[in-house]
């Protein structure tokens, strides 16, 4: 009796409320990738334009060197590294939504898994690119591989990012196999080129029982593997800072602090993407208000967790106010960086908590707005982790030009950063044009489960 109640509840959670009325054919037609409409084309055009400006700025950086940036002796890491940390953070959502939820038996997350995986792949690609941009000459990356020492945190980062990228690709690919079979069936919707591409990557999938078992086993192994790797990637990113003895970075808390922040920004990105795809592709029957309600609750939990880590990270140093750290802390609380700091805390954590604690705040539009706040707040939070510390070294700055004491990104840095952000959006957009944004086969399976 108890089991049947549980099953009934799961089924209710999993499927759209009016699932009974949706036929299999209709589900497939609803979920097939759609061609860009007028607004879709404009969106892609704008993104491509921003990327091209970014590429021109990168050409200038290659041509004239890193001197075109505002990075100097002290602020040697600027928005490139902030952006890198942001991308790594956002990519962790793949492990949260896909792996953690899947292993925990959270069924309602099915329509969100592909969104999370696509975001993870796009973000990790640009995390890799932006770190090479930050190196200045790209051949340094080659030397890093050739002469790198396994003892160096930058090599750990290269290893874990490569690993995570590979796992993310596999985690996107394996669950796609059954959907590719469906895509091949609907040739008239796909077009010649895409049909060829689908045939190349998945024509071998026949949906046999043995294939299904192997696929299921592989997905489970991936879900188990991606969690420690995801934790490693962001812990190692935090260690790039924490292993350096500097005000604001000298913390044993950094690994957990970064991971909590990463899960928050990842979840924020997913709700933003959920809302956009729901509106753009008319997926209201599949991404329901209930999904926003549940993701809203998760966002509250993650915001509270991250706020708790922030209190730990800033309140105790503030209480002690060590002389060597006071300039850095005052800079954040009441100085040059105060407006960004309080914006990141308020918009990125406190306001989302207040809004999402109310049931009305967990409706699609408010959750979307909160998601945007979380993502924007998180970007600025990464900037605050990187730059203020570099501008407040333990040993005072002596005999340096005035512009070494401050950092404001040059237009080339802004252009490259915006280009990379546009690049992430472009990769997500292209992937959702090629692949179904909601797993079709899994949705059909759940439909059959209900029918039983």
């Amino acid at each position, binding site marked *: 009796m108890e089991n049947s109640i549980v099953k009934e509840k799961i089924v209710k959670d999993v499927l759209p409320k009016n699932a009974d009325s949706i036929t299999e054919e209709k589900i497939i037609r609803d979920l097939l990738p759609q061609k860009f409409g007028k607004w879709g084309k404009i969106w892609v055009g704008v993104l491509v334009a921003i990327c091209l400006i970014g590429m021109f700025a990168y050409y200038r950086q290659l041509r004239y060197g890193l001197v075109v940036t505002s990075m100097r002796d002290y602020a040697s890491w600027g928005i490139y590294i902030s952006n890198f940390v942001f991308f790594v953070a956002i990519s962790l959502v793949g492990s949260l939504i896909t792996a953690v939820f899947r292993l925990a038996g959270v069924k309602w997350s099915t329509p969100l898994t592909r969104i999370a995986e696509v975001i993870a792949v796009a973000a990790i690609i640009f995390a890799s690119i932006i770190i090479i941009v930050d190196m200045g000459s790209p051949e340094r990356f080659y030397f890093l591989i050739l002469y790198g020492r396994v003892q160096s945190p930058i090599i750990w980062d290269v290893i874990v990012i490569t690993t995570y990228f590979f796992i993310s690709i596999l985690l996107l690919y394996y669950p796609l196999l059954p959907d590719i079979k469906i895509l091949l069936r609907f040739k008239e919707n796909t077009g010649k080129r895409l049909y060829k591409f689908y045939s190349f990557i998945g024509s071998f999938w*026949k949906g046999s029982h043995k294939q299904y078992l192997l*696929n299921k086993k592989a997905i489970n192994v991936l879900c188990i593997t991606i969690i420690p790797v995801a934790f490693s990637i962001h812990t190692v990113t935090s260690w790039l800072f924490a292993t350096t003895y500097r005000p604001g970075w000298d913390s044993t808390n950094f690994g957990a602090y970064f991971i909590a922040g990463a899960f928050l920004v990842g979840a924020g990105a997913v709700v933003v993407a959920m809302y956009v795809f729901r509106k753009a592709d008319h997926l209201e029957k599949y991404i329901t208000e209930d999904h926003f309600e549940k993701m809203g609750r998760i966002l509250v939990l993650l915001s509270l967790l991250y706020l708790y880590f922030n209190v730990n990270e800033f309140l105790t140093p503030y209480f002690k106010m060590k002389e060597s750290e006071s300039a850095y802390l005052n800079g954040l609380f009441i100085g040059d960086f105060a407006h960004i700091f309080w914006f990141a805390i308020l918009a990125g954590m406190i306001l989302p908590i207040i809004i999402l604690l109310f049931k009305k705040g967990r409706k699609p539009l408010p959750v979307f707005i909160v998601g945007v706040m979380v993502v924007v707040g998180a970007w600025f939070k990464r900037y605050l982790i990187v730059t203020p510390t570099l501008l407040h070294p333990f040993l005072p700055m002596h005999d340096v030009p005035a512009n070494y004491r401050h950092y404001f990104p040059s237009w080339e840095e802004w252009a490259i950063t915006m280009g990379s952000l546009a690049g992430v959006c472009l990769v997500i957009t292209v992937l959702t044009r090629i692949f179904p944004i909601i797993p079709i086969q899994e949705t059909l399976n759940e439909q059959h489960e209900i029918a039983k």
Partner: protein
Amino acid sequence: MKSLNKILIGSLSIILVLSSYNGFSQAAEKGDLNVAVNYFITNNKVPQLMVKVNTKINGKFLNVGGINLKLFLDKDSTGTFIGNVITNEKGEATAYIPTSVKAEWATSSKHTFLATFDGNKKYAPARGDLTVAKAKILIDATSDKTVTASVFEMKDTTWTPVKGVDVVLAIRRMDADLTIDEKPTFTTDSTGKASGDFKRDSIPGDARGNITLVAKIVDNDQYGNLSIEKTVPWGNKFVPVNTFNERTLFATRNKAPVWILFIAYSIAVSVWGVLIMLVFNLFRIKKLGRDV
């Protein structure tokens, strides 16, 4: 009621106009600056000037940065111009005496240094000066560990020993100088010499046991600040023992502990082993698809 409003608005307008009229406000008083000039000569080489600028606000002296000062030798003219300096956040600025004033420098054994500030929006013009006599200091260390400093003053064209000058005999350390015994200063006798015994036998030196002795005259009204150094092998040999390379992952490639490398490589290999297995799994799925 309407007329009351008109009166109120009219009054407010008059108050606003009057309060914004500059003629009623007093021009802000400019602050006064104190300019102090200090003279340094190290190892009897090129003399250096250090200017320090501060101001008194609410009974406290505060250093003033960003003050542009002109430095002159003896008189405020083009031929005696030493240079322009700008004070840093500690209110300090330094300048070496350039060769362009060599002729003026040779004319006398006593000189006055002038530092002038022309004033700006915040501070009134200010100036400071310092008169010093040309002097030099020598240091000698004998095998019985006696340190002797000799002070001479330029009189006419000859160096003459000076009596009664306080000299610090010390050892250079990283942050400050440590006197060679408990006595803070030694006074020169009629031959211009001041001697002290070195009583810091156990002090660590460098890898060869070398330490640097220093003899210095500090803030003397006549001669300014003079110092001279000499290296002697009187310290304990200090060989740092560093186990860093034996215990840390950050050691150079071939010195990192094997067990740490083993763990690091094992993690990478096991994760990539799983991934390779999963890629292999794809080929199995592909093969099954062909067989169907």
